[in-house]
Structure formats: structure tokens, C-alpha cells
């Protein structure tokens, strides 16, 4: 996937996803401009995680299309410009924190993978635990490491599913600070949130999903706080 820097954003066109009889997303149309930091709000089962997994290319839509920049997302491996933080950490418990980051950095073709891993570990406040096995980490430490993994390739689009899960105040402050920096650098961020005002404060736009549809969007004139307040966030 080749993504021109000026064009990097995210677009969903008539996106629908069904799991058997269950309709998770119903013909969602959503356009996110490059550099926006968007919060997806909504109750459990509203379709937030499904939308993020579709955008990452991890699951195929039943119908409709997703574009990252100008290129259609067809398979996960093609979306190198995308960093994805899922509900689960996507980390190997039997490897150390550094080994995990170096493994994924090498697979992504990141130049100087060891140095990049060490830098990210330091930024995440895990520099001294780099050689510890991930299975010895607390939930919050795993979440920090998972976010570091998502940032490995310096992605232009970042998809975060509940980034505040398990984080203490310090962790939330680090994530909020990182998101601020990424916004300043023009990175497009889409994150689903539940009740983390520290992270919601970073948002430039809020979209509320309800029963698989876009129920409210601050880009359509509604106040950002109102859209966030209407959901579970």
C-alpha cells in the first residue's frame, strides 16, 4: 500500500459486517481527514471494535469498502502505514518486552529494530524491564508495551481499541501525551473509548456508534462533548 502523506486519512464506504444473523455494522459511511484524532464512543456491542478491526484489515467486510489514504484495505499485511492496538495485547508472554518489540519491528521491516525497540521501551517507561518476560508484567505494563508495539513502524494512521485499559493515572498521562505528539505530527488517530476523560480530551472529533450505525458526529455540527456524553464515554 502506498500512501501519500497528504492523503493519509480513513474512509469507510457503505461498510457492513455481519456475524451470522448479527449485524455488527450497518452501511457505515465515515470520512476521517488526515491528522484528525477521533474518538469512537458507544455502548458495548455498538460496533466500535468491529469498525477498527475492519480498518486494520484483520477481518473482511460483508459489504462496503475501507480506504486508508487512497488505497483500499484488503489484507492486514498491506497496511504497513497502520498501527493497531487491539483489545488483547498481541504480545508473546514467553518473550521479553524487548524481544517482542524487536520481533514485530523486524517483521515490519523497521530500520535498526533493536534501537527502535529500546527507544520505545524507554518512552513507555519500561526501559528497565526490557529484559523481563511479558508474563511477569501487570495489565497496565502490558498495555503500555502493546501501544509501543503499535507505534513501531511510525504509522500514519493509528487505530486504538480501548487504549486506556488497565492503565493507572501515570499510564493514561503517557498515552494522552503520546497522542498529543502524534496529532502534532499529523498522524490520524481513531480510538474507541470508555470513560477516560484524560484521553477524550485529546480528541478533535467524536463519533458515536449505536447498533452498528453512526448515531452522532461532532463533524456534523454537534458539540464534541455532547457526542461523547451521549455515549458510554
Amino acid at each position, binding site marked *: 500500500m502506498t500512501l501519500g502523506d497528504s492523503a493519509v486519512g480513513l474512509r469507510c464506504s457503505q461498510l457492513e459486517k455481519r456475524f451470522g444473523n448479527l449485524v455488527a455494522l450497518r452501511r457505515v459511511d465515515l470520512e476521517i481527514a488526515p491528522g484528525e484524532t477521533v474518538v469512537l464512543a458507544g455502548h458495548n456491542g455498538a460496533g466500535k471494535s468491529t469498525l477498527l478491526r475492519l480498518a486494520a484489515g484483520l477481518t473482511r467486510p460483508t459489504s462496503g469498502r475501507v480506504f486508508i489514504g487512497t488505497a483500499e484495505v484488503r489484507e492486514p*499485511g498491506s497496511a504497513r502505514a497502520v498501527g493497531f492496538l487491539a483489545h*488483547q495485547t498481541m504480545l508473546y508472554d514467553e518473550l521479553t518486552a524487548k524481544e517482542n518489540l524487536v520481533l514485530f519491528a523486524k517483521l515490519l521491516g523497521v530500520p535498526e529494530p533493536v534501537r527502535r525497540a529500546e527507544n520505545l521501551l524507554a518512552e513507555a517507561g519500561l526501559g528497565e524491564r526490557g529484559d523481563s518476560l511479558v508474563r511477569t508484567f501487570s495489565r497496565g505494563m502490558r498495555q503500555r508495551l502493546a501501544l509501543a508495539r503499535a507505534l513501531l513502524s511510525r504509522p500514519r494512521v493509528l487505530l486504538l481499541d480501548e487504549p486506556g485499559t488497565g492503565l493507572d493515572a501515570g499510564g493514561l498521562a503517557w498515552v494522552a501525551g503520546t497522542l498529543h505528539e502524534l496529532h502534532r505530527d499529523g498522524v490520524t488517530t481513531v480510538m474507541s473509548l470508555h470513560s477516560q476523560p484524560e484521553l477524550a480530551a485529546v480528541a478533535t472529533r467524536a463519533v458515536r456508534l449505536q447498533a452498528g450505525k453512526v448515531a452522532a458526529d461532532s463533524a456534523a455540527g454537534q458539540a464534541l462533548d455532547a457526542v461523547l456524553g451521549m455515549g458510554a464515554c
Partner: protein
Amino acid sequence: MGLARATGILLGKELRTELRSRELVTTTAVFVLLVIALFSFTFDPSSAESRRFGPGLLWLAFLFAASLMLQTCFLREQANDTLSGLRLCVGDPFAIFLAKLAANALFLLLTELLLLPVFSVLYNVPILRVWPSLVLVLLVGDVGICLTGTGMAAISAQARMRELLLPLLLLPLLTPVLIASTEATAALLSENPVLRWDWLGILLAFDGVFLTVLWLFGEYLLEE
């Protein structure tokens, strides 16, 4: 990134995680040891009887042990959804299969090499003089088992009743491998040992067909 490099990186990960946990090789080795020992009590392990029944028992033990071992290869990736992590990073999903196939075949071969001397002693079958040919048959047979097994493990890992599903899918598919491997091994353990290239050819053809199938359709097996 090329297929070979991605496979190499992933194979390194497979070996490192197994070295840390030692789950697969230990479990498989203990299982094969138990089966070989138990079977040795069921008939008189004279040289003639062992030559008649030994190869079949040996390959049955390897097959059941492999189905145990293969069960976990994709289940491990589900614990923290690491399979999704790999799919996001690896350009060609075939690399994920190749790495798992290589690791599984290596672990199975290692187990077999450790337990062949035990089999030789318990069943009174000399294996030293046919050692290189026997290793060749084991290797080609193992690749067949692991090729099919890795693909089926990817399917069963996403299903309910996954523990039951893998043997049900795998064992019928592996009948040709079982027959060819047993025949090739029996020919090597006979009084006049000979490497049967016809059976080896069948094994190689099986390996080729399933490798192609995995290459063509492996991507779909990993999808959610």
C-alpha cells in the same frame, strides 16, 4: 520483506518460545515413550514379531503424538491474539505457515530421534545400520504430517470443540502418509534392509500437493 526472511524470523520466534516453555517436545516425547512401552507388553518382542508390527506401531505413536503437538500451535497464538499481530506485520501469510511447519517438523523429528533407540531396545530391532535412511523416511513422513496438521490446526483453532476437531480432520487425511511411512520403515527394518523409493516417492508427492494447497489457500485459513 521476502518470504524466506519473514519465515526465518518467525521460525526463530517459534524455537525461542519452545526453548523457554519446553511444552511441545516434552509432552510429545513422554506420550510416544508411553505408547511404545505399553505396546511392547502386548506381544512377544522377538525380532520377527517386531519387524512385523513395529513400524506400524511406531508410526501410529508418532501420528497420535503429532496430533497432540499440532493442536497447540495455533491455540498458543490465540492467548493474546498474537496471530492478528503477525497478520498485521507479515506481508505473505504463507510465511506464518512455513515457520510453524518447519518448527513442528523439527520438534517431531527431534522427539523421534530421541525415542528410536528406546524402540530399538524394547522391540529388539537393530536400527544402527539403516540410521541415515531411517532419518530420511522420518523427515519426509514428518513433513507430510506437519503440513496437513498445521493447516488443519489453523482451521480447528477457530472452531468450537477444537480439541476433538483436529484429530477428526487430521487422521483420515493422513492415511496415505501412515501407509507409505510404515511400508518404507518396514522395508528398512527387514532382515534385508532396502530403501523403498516408491513409498518415499508417494510421501514426497503428498508433501508437494499439500504444500501447494497451503500456499494457495493458507491465507483464508488465518482469517477471522
